[in-house]
């Protein structure tokens, strides 16, 4: 029988994946709660399109389920594997689209009833501005910046996901951050950095 949900939440991703492959009915739920928000968040930031991010997330998770029986514990982190699949799927999608449009309206707007309408609008405007600036970055820089600054991953983790060296990650994130700062200059008002 399956491990109760509370117990499943204490297990590592590795262990949950093995349980899933062995038919445990609770393992998929626990893994989904842990990994899907990360996959979706990264896909959304990299693609800038909610519908595409949903498709990519579902596909990445499907690949995780199918890969479960062949997973070798200790070889890599499951989350790293998922991030890598998401990144590769994003790259493939963009290659297929060849210059797909940026749908800023599709970027989700965080909901927080405690904030005033003005604050909320201001915050939404900031997120939109950030997303728009992210979309102006070259794809590899955008991936590195999203993983480093929005997913809060370490450089070695990002290196493993992007399959490049740590130095290359440092270079990408530094250049990406500079380009982002430059790109946000023209959106100072949206960011709440009004003159005065």
């Amino acid at each position: 029988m399956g491990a109760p949900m509370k117990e499943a939440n204490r297990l590592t991703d590795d262990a949950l994946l093995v349980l899933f492959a062995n038919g445990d009915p609770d393992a998929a739920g626990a893994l989904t709660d842990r990994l899907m928000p990360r996959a979706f968040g990264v896909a959304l930031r990299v693609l800038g399109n909610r519908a595409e991010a949903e498709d990519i997330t579902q596909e990445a998770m499907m690949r995780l389920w199918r890969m479960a029986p062949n997973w070798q514990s200790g070889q890599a982190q499951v989350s790293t594997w998922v991030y890598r699949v998401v990144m590769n799927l994003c790259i493939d999608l963009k290659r297929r689209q060849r210059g797909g449009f940026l749908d800023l309206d599709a970027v989700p707007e965080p909901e927080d009833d405690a904030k005033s309408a003005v604050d909320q609008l201001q915050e939404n405007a900031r997120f939109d501005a950030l997303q728009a600036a992210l979309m102006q970055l070259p794809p590899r820089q955008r991936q590195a910046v999203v993983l480093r600054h929005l997913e809060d991953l370490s450089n070695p983790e990002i290196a493993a996901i992007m399959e490049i060296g740590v130095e290359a990650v440092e270079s990408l994130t530094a250049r990406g951050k500079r380009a982002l700062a430059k790109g946000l200059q023209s959106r100072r008002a949206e960011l709440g950095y009004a003159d005065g």
Partner: protein
Amino acid sequence: MQMDKQDDISDDALDALFATARAQPPSMPDALKQAVLADAASVQHNLVKEARNQSATPTEGWRLVVDMLGGFLGVAGLATACVAGLLIGLSPPGVFADPEVWAIFDTALPVDSFDLADVFAEDIE
């Protein structure tokens, strides 16, 4: 938020923006979670079914041998024949102990009816 003198977005301001974005991850669509869980259930069902089939079927090598012998019916017939042969060998029926039965084989053909050696000898001559 601070700006530097060229009105660039400062590192601190950018970091603050990142921190705000991190603190408010995008909302997860319920339908997506349901779809992902449905995929998981489907894949898991197939994995379990596959594992059961593998444990229930004979190994590939045995299956090959059985097929070569004509399937399970062929194997059953062969086994029956082997057992029958063994039993006959160990305990022959009484009819084979009767010397008159063996005499049939002795007199079935005349001893001098045909001899290959004679044929060869005639050819040589």
